[in-house]
């Protein structure tokens, strides 16, 4: 493997892995605070791509403003999902809640295929510009650089948010024990609503980062959702930093599998990495083993 190929493989892996990690972050956040595995997390991102292209871009606003509007709209959608689909009958159990997200996943996909499926794929303009910069003999596009930059900024913002803001601390309290948190005066329902708002917004950011690199189509986020879940588990499900590390490891590993073994083995390889990590460290890369209680 030439050093050039090696470097581009690593960069591709880190790029994708950061996106898995970011999406995984939203999954972990929702899972920790509401104990729901959000299967619709990826489709929120796909839908955001279409909101941008079909709803916001025709308004002819500056591109960065269109981006922000789309992210906000997607956040509102996330909140609406919580209010409409998860708020009713809250005692139904976590498994039923997860089935509801599956229902929403089916719905949002069906609506997108109905509305836009016939003419896909679409080209989405990038905010970062089409230029490339030469680095060490190969070229990196502004797109890729921008994606890595946004991922790092988002991840840092997240970690700071949970450490230093009141809302972030309240979310962590709810994640650890909802009953104790509510006894301390935290409105658990409002926290759950804000968590879903954030999940919608993160979904949109990931969707808008992916859409210009590959073409926008209704199946855009299908490959991402499983890997985001995998990254979340590799990170131990309880650590925000662990998810990002898990995502990057996964991205680099699959990138190498595609180059070194075969492009067809890229997807099966994800499963092997997941199994390997779980066999060696069942509690995740940065996770602590939790003992069962009687």
């Amino acid at each position: 493997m030439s050093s050039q190929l090696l470097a581009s493989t690593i960069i591709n892996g880190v790029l994708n892995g950061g996106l898995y990690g970011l999406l995984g972050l939203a999954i972990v956040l929702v899972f920790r605070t509401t104990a729901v595995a959000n299967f619709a997390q990826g489709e929120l991102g796909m839908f955001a791509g279409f909101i941008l292209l079909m709803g916001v871009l025709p308004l002819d606003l500056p591109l960065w403003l269109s981006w922000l509007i789309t992210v906000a709209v997607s956040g509102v959608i996330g909140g609406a999902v919580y209010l409409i689909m998860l708020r009713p009958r809250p005692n139904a159990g976590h498994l039923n809640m997860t089935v509801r997200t599956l229902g929403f996943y089916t719905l949002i996909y069906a609506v997108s295929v109905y509305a836009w499926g016939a003419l896909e794929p679409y080209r989405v303009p990038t905010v970062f510009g089409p230029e490339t910069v030469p680095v060490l003999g190969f070229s990196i596009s502004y797109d890729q650089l921008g994606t890595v930059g946004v991922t790092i900024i988002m991840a840092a913002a997240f970690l700071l948010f949970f450490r230093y803001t009141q809302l972030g601390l309240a979310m962590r309290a709810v994640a650890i024990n909802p009953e104790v948190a509510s006894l301390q005066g935290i409105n658990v329902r409002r926290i759950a609503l804000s968590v879903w708002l954030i999940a919608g917004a993160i979904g949109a950011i990931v969707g808008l980062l992916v859409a210009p690199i590959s073409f926008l189509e209704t199946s855009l986020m299908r490959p991402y959702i499983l890997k985001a879940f995998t990254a979340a588990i590799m990170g131990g499900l309880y650590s925000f930093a662990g998810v990002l590390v898990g995502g990057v490891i996964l991205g680099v590993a699959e990138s190498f599998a595609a180059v070194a073994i075969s492009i067809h083995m890229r997807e099966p390889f994800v499963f092997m990495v997941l199994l390997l990590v779980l066999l060696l460290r069942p509690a995740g890369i940065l996770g602590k083993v939790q003992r069962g209680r009687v």
Partner: protein
Amino acid sequence: MPGKTSGWAFALIAVAALAIAPLWLGTYPRYVISVWLIFALSAVGLNIPIGLASIYSFGHGGFMLIGAYATGVATISWGWPLLPAMLLAVVIAIAVGALIGLPSLRLTGFSLAIVTFAFGYMLFHVVKAFDLTGGPQGLFMPETALARAWGGRPLYYMVLAIFVVGVFWAHSIATGKTGRALRTLGTNEIVAQSLGINLLRAKMLSFMLSGVYGAVAGSLLALVTTYVAPETYTPELSINMFAAVMIGGSGTLVGPILGALFIVLIPELTQSAQNLSEIIYALIFCLVATLFPSGLLGMAKSAIRRLRPQPVPAAVRE
């Protein structure tokens, strides 16, 4: 539901109706009923880990894929007769089920669910990558004698017979020693362990049993649809199977069968709405999941309870 006399009577009438119906029905309704019975068989099997042991399996489509592809490859490429091919499918599914069950002790419910999901996803990509399995096009099954003779009714009866055997086996598993062990560990693992239940064995067994059901259903599906394509066995199939069990009512015998009817019939019924069909299906899916957490069966039971006159307390009667 069987166990009470009324339950057995209901089961007998249902089977009799399903046995007589194809004498009059045309090819298309028979095809739809066959597909329903196949999905119902698969869902009844998936109910073993989900409904009894509370182990969330999102990879059931993977077992159906194993069944379909093992049957397809063995009959087409190796020229095996049908029965050994189906046996091969079952044997592979048992081995794979054991393999998936292995890490189940070390993992929490959510992680295990994602491992099963990833398993189905991996198989979907593997069969697309190899020539033996027909690559992205898949395999075309040759028309069997079962489908040729008497307008294809023998195939229908074979599906019905296997379905009936499968449901009764599931009933005896659920009410027998295995079922009790699985329900105990589903409620509390530590209690189950203290009662002498081998957790690893029980969990592996639940995956192996659901694998057998999935594989048989998959190979029947290959026979009925006469074609094995990767697009049939996407991760969405696993999600739909999971939804079928949950929408019907997990932990019951009739629930998964009802749920399978839901996922097979609604897309067929709304076909005239063309592109809207998927949206209607998804909307009903969301409504049922949100409004009736205990599934269609729970919904029917509470409706019956409401219709029945409430017994008046003795004190009021006097």
